[in-house]
């Protein structure tokens, strides 16, 4: 509670300094709009429907991408983590694909998928699969042999051990991977919108606002919303992790 209060005080002080700075003679007028102006712009934008559509379009693309990434990476990680032969066979491919920055593939994705939401979703999936995949594999490497032995000694079958021992024991690691992936997916979605000149989306909104006349208050408002979404996503996932995987932290298994 006290930490939260101190955090709020910090934010308030920062906003106050910002307000004073942008109203002073130190910066050209309109160059950095004060928080009060940005706040007013933000409220206006949220009441007017078009901006809300942009936000929804980005968040939706992000959610779909993250969902697909989880659906792909977790089962794949379970296979790679538990079948050494498959892991050896795919190692080279993985090592070659992983370092490609997804932002570098934006032009390729646009050529392949056009300017619609597909390009940003595909790119975000590509970028966010890795942390989930690697954390899942790592989790299986770290699986405690004695937990498995305990289940085996009670006559538990292999598939059931996978479902009732390996999977739950990997869950906190996987969750950490998902949190990283969520942040990456958001970055990739907004960057693709920025670079691809998409028709909808937060990135597109910021781009339009900054071009031409350069409405700084709109640019700042868009950026603040992007930051806020990122913050809420991380806070939400952190809550899920604390709520459902508290045991992982207790046993030192959460990274």
């Amino acid at each position: 509670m006290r930490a939260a209060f101190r955090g709020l005080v910090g934010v308030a002080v920062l906003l106050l300094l910002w307000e004073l700075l942008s109203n002073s003679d130190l910066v050209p007028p309109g160059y950095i709009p004060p928080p009060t102006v940005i706040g007013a712009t933000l409220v206006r934008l949220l009441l007017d429907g078009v901006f809300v559509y942009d936000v929804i379009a980005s968040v939706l693309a992000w959610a779909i991408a993250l969902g697909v990434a989880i659906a792909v990476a977790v089962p794949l990680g379970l296979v790679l983590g538990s079948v050494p032969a498959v892991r050896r066979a795919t190692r080279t491919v993985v090592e070659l694909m992983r370092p490609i920055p997804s932002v570098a593939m934006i032009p390729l994705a646009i050529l392949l998928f056009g300017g619609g939401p597909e390009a940003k979703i595909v790119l975000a999936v590509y970028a966010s699969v890795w942390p989930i995949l690697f954390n899942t594999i790592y989790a299986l490497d770290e699986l405690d042999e004695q937990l498995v032995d305990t289940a085996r000694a009670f006559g538990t079958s292999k598939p059931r051990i996978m479902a009732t021992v390996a999977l739950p024991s990997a869950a906190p690691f996987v969750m950490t991977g998902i949190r990283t992936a969520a942040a990456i997916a958001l970055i990739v979605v907004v960057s693709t919108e920025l670079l691809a000149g998409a028709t909808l989306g937060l990135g597109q909104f910021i781009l339009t606002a900054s071009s031409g006349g350069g409405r700084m208050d709109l640019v700042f408002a868009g950026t603040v919303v992007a930051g806020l979404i990122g913050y809420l996503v991380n806070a939400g996932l952190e809550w899920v992790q604390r709520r459902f995987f508290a045991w992982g932290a207790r046993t030192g298994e959460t990274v």
Partner: protein
Amino acid sequence: MSTMLEVTDLGHRYGDHTAIDRLSFTVAAGELVCIVGPSGCGKSTLLRTLSGLVASTTGHVALHGDEVRGVPDDLAVVFQDYSRSLFPWLTVQRNVEFPLKRKVSRAERRARAAEALEWVGLSGAGAKYPWQLSGGMQQRVAIARALAYRPALLLMDEPFASVDAQTRFELEDLLLRVRREHDTTILLVTHDIDESVYLGDRVLVLSKSPATIVANLKVDLPAERDQITTRESDTFVALRAETARLLHGGGTVRPRVQADPEGVAARFLAAERAEQAAQASKRHAAQN
């Protein structure tokens, strides 16, 4: 008394390292047999082959007359390291229910888990998570889980080696009580001589690696045991001395002991000294 476990010529090798060498012994129904042996002599390996976790290289095992292949149905294991054998994501109640999944109905599972938790004095702890309990309580949960399974044979691998002395005494007495009340057949492995004599109806003494049985001692103590008076009794002191002699040195005072304790003891002493020297040099290296 009928034979519950019959082990014949059981051996296990890791590559070319022989961990246990042609062990033969039996455990009667309702008996509590302690196996005592020095660290690294192959006690865990023996329990792992008995429980089917690893395949034995030689010999066979029969449980209530049936030849065992793979993991037997009605056998439970309690490991030393409770923190790594209880599932941290399950409550205590669900941990105890775990082995009963797909074997008995949900209602019966609940009932049996609750009952077993009561036996070990943990009725109120069902909704807690293992990491919210002390070490001794966690090991009691592991014992409750094994009992709820109603195994024909309960295998215990140094179950009390990781708790403090006071808790250890409590758990030893708890084990003696539940096994008397529920007629459980137990094979318990330990490196602690006192514990093997205090708990056992019989003590099997193992040699240094590769493990062979050097003695089979009947414990002539009354069934009802007490941490203070039993340990003071002449029988206890004599048995403890005999077991220690068999493990560490000297001959034996009892003619019923088979094998050659002299040779075994000499081998054991030499190996022990080598190990101490190795550890000392390791410590020395670590300090520099």
